[in-house]
Every structure is written in C-alpha cells, then in structure tokens.
C-alpha cells in the first residue's frame, strides 16, 4: 500500500512539474524503459551477468566460510592462528582495497568474484564457528553411545545442529554479496548492473538508470524470498520448535 502511494507520488511529482528536472522522469516512463530493456534483452543481459558473478562469489565464499568456521570451532590450533588474522581483516571495507586489488587481479571477473567471496566469508565463517561451538555436548555423547564414528559425527550431528546459525550467516551473506557485486562493478566495471548504472549516469539517461534500479530491487526481493523459503525448508525444526516454546 505504502509502495503504491510512493510510486504514485513519484508519478505526480514528475508529471505536474513540481520537480522540473531531466533527471526526474515519471515512473511510467521508467516502466516503459524497463519493459523495453527486458524485451530487447539489454537489461536481462546486464542483470544476468551480475547475478552470475554474484552466485560464483557467494558460493565460493560460503563454502570456504563454512569449512573454515567448522575448523575454527573444532580445532584449537586453527582457532589460535587464524582467528586474530580474521579479526584484523574483517573490518576492512572491501571498497577500499578494490583499487590495489586491480593491480593484482585485473579488471576481470575474478576481481569481482574475489571481492564478493571475501566479503561473504566473514559473517558465514564466524556464524558457523559460533554455531558449531554451541552444539550441545549431549548430542555428541548420544552419537557416541550409538557407535557413530568420528567422521560421521560431523555430518550426522554437528552440522545439522549448527544449521540454524550457519543459515543466519548465509542470509547475511546474501545481502552483502548483492551490495559488493554492484559496488565492485561500479569501481572496476566492464559489465553488469554497477557498470550499467555508472554508464547511464554519465550518459544522463536517468530513465534507464531507474529502470535497472527497479529491476535490481525486484531481483533482490525475489532472491531474499527464495532464500527464506529454502531456509524454512531446511531448518523447519528449529523455527517451529521456538514457536512451540519447548
């Protein structure tokens, strides 16, 4: 409802001449640009290439994050050697190191994939560590009394028990991945949403700029909803149990 009202206000403010600027096109014009962009495939290609990079970086960063998080929680020497380094690297805003990284990785996809993976790594690794560390020791005793060997312990007991925390990290990671994707494309772009936005800005094509922003919003919303549904599927037991109050 509020969204509709705001969009209406946008339309009226632009049409009525309340805001008189070439950079403030009416909403309807943006929708037209959006539909045209999708129809001729231009925007689809732009968003698609961004999403593909985002997915690669996210999967890479998550996989390493989960593996390192488990190692941090379970292997004390790993914790002692790695955790201080992680705490040191974590506050670095990725945007600040993109320019020097260009020297090393170039302007290509691997730079952006690295930035995305690097940024999602921290919340996922730290949440996984916290989740694994807080697994109730009684679960391991139960597994022991039923003869579960140590390698299976991780798969059958520790990871499932830590799943709610791992997912909390993964969810944070999705939002971060999207931001870093767009920003890294803006700074070191040749394609993708971030690059497109910058190009349209320089070309003073405000309508196309807003069109891609709206598409990005819709895609981000869809990703988030999809993720929440997936999460609910996997850790249904944890959610429902909280509501059941036991």
């Amino acid at each position, binding site marked *: 409802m509020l969204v509709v009202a705001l969009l209406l206000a946008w339309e009226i403010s632009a049409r009525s001449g309340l805001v008189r600027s070439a950079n403030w096109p009416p909403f309807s014009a943006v929708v037209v640009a959006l539909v045209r962009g999708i129809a001729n495939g231009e925007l689809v290609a732009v968003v698609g290439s961004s999403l593909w990079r985002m997915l690669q970086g996210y999967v890479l960063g998550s996989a390493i994050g989960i593996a390192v998080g488990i190692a941090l929680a379970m292997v004390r020497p790993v914790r002692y050697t790695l955790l201080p380094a992680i705490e040191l690297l974590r506050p670095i805003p990725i945007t600040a190191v993109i320019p020097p990284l260009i020297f090393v990785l170039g302007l290509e996809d691997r730079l952006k994939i690295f930035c995305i993976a690097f940024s999602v790594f921290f919340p996922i690794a730290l949440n996984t560590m916290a989740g694994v560390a807080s697994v*109730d020791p*009684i*679960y391991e*005793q*139960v597994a*022991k*009394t*039923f*003869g*579960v*060997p140590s390698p*299976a312990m991780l798969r*059958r*007991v520790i990871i*499932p*028990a830590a*799943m709610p925390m791992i997912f909390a990290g993964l969810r944070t990671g999705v939002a971060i991945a999207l931001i870093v994707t767009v920003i890294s494309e803006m700074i070191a772009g040749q394609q993708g949403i971030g690059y497109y936005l910058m190009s349209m800005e320089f070309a003073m094509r405000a309508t196309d700029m807003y069109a891609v922003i709206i598409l990005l919003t819709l895609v981000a919303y869809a990703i988030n909803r999809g993720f929440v549904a997936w999460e609910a599927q996997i*850790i249904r*037991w*944890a959610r*429902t*149990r909280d509501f*059941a109050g*036991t």
Partner: protein
Amino acid sequence: MTAGEALQIDSITKTFGSGVGQVEAIASFSLDVEAGEFLSIVGPSGCGKSTLLQIVAGLMPPTSGRVLLGGRDVTGEPAHMVYLFQQYAKSLLPWMTVEANVGFGFEHRGKFTPEQARVRCREYLDMVGLGDVAHRYPWQLSGGMQQRVAIARALSAQPRVLLLDEPFSSVDALTRLELHALILELWEKQQFTAILVTHDVDEAVFLADRVAMLTQRPATLFGVMETELPRPRRPVETNELPRFLEVRHRLLGHLLAKGTGTHDGP
C-alpha cells in the same frame, strides 16, 4: 534376541582436575554385574553415580581401573552398551523425526536397507506404544512420550547392557510408574543387562534384583543388597510387601546416615 552380558567393573577411580582444585569423584569402585540382571545403584546426590555410569558406558575415561564386558576390556569402546540419558528432551535429536531418531540408534551398528531400517524402527516404536507418531518431531511430544522414544531408540541398538542414568526423574509420578512397567516388560522380553543409577530408593528397589549403595564423594561401594522380591513386579502390590519395606528401610537408613562408614554395612 541379544542376551545380556556380564560386566565387571574393576577398581575404577576418577579424579577431576589437578593440583589444588583436584576433586576425587570415585575412589576405587569394583562390582561384578551378572548377565541379564537388573542392578540399581543408589547414593547421596552428588556422590558420583552418573560419573560412574558414564565411565562404564565408555563416554568418559576412568583415571585408573577398567571395565570388562563378557571378559573383554571395553573401556572407551562402547559397543553393545547403550546409555539412556537423564535429559531425554535434549538427548533426542531435534532435527530428526521420531522415526529417524530411532533409526539413529542402530544405523551405525550394521548395514540396513531403507526398508529394513523402517521395519525395525516401527517394531521398536510399536514396542513402546508410539507407532502412530513416527513422523512427528520429538518436541511435538509430551515428556513421557519423548522418554519412550529415547527408550525405543536405545533398545533398537539391541544392547547387551543398558545403562539408565536417572531416566525417570523428570517425568510426573504417574508417567514414571508407566515407564517403570514398560522398562521391566522390555527387559524381560529382550533380556539385556540393566544398570540403573537413581536417587529414588523406591524406584531402585521396585525395579532391581540387587541394589548397590554408594558412599558419599569420593564414591566407593558401601554394600550390595538383594531385593529378593517376586517378579513380575506390580506397582501397588510389590511396594506393600514386607520385604519391600524392609529393603527400603535399610537403604534409606544408609542414605540418611550419609553413608560415611559409621554403619557396618547392610
């Protein structure tokens, strides 16, 4: 059918920590448990009963001494023994359905096709009267039902020795009587050796063939008493037998005297 096996607990000691903060929990405990018997262990709270049982189960290493199952050293290797936890609500794995929890009890004890596993899960769930909740999650069940699932899971592993760590202490009185009847029925049917740790004297006497009494920390064996009560045990009649009251009297006398060795034994 897996018959129970004899268990020898041989000079177990357990000390926690070291130096000034060192706590001696168990000071040399030895006891022979006969194959297929139901043994209760009672002692003042905090005397190290659970520690003792966890050592027997191989969940915790003793400081010295050893546990022999059927004549073989099994310390640290809990094969053929299953430990039934006091906190049943926490011991069931919350991300698994009731059926999967029961399946967890035996999946590492052998190779099963999914169909075989399902049949065996059903068999044990039916045994505890819970065949109709197989696809629910543990936290959707009442406390008594959760403990039944835990019992089904423990027995599905077909243990030679079942170790019970106050498993009936956190359910209401009526449910406790039902669980007593259930565990006795299953014990008679499956013929495993049962060792129950409890601070409830009535429970210890009602269920057991023999009751072992522990001293205060550091725990040692104060004495063992034959209950000599007829089976099957009945919740009302058995508890009113003169022999029941006599055994109960002596055990309580020991516990109230704190078992510091001022008595001459049972």
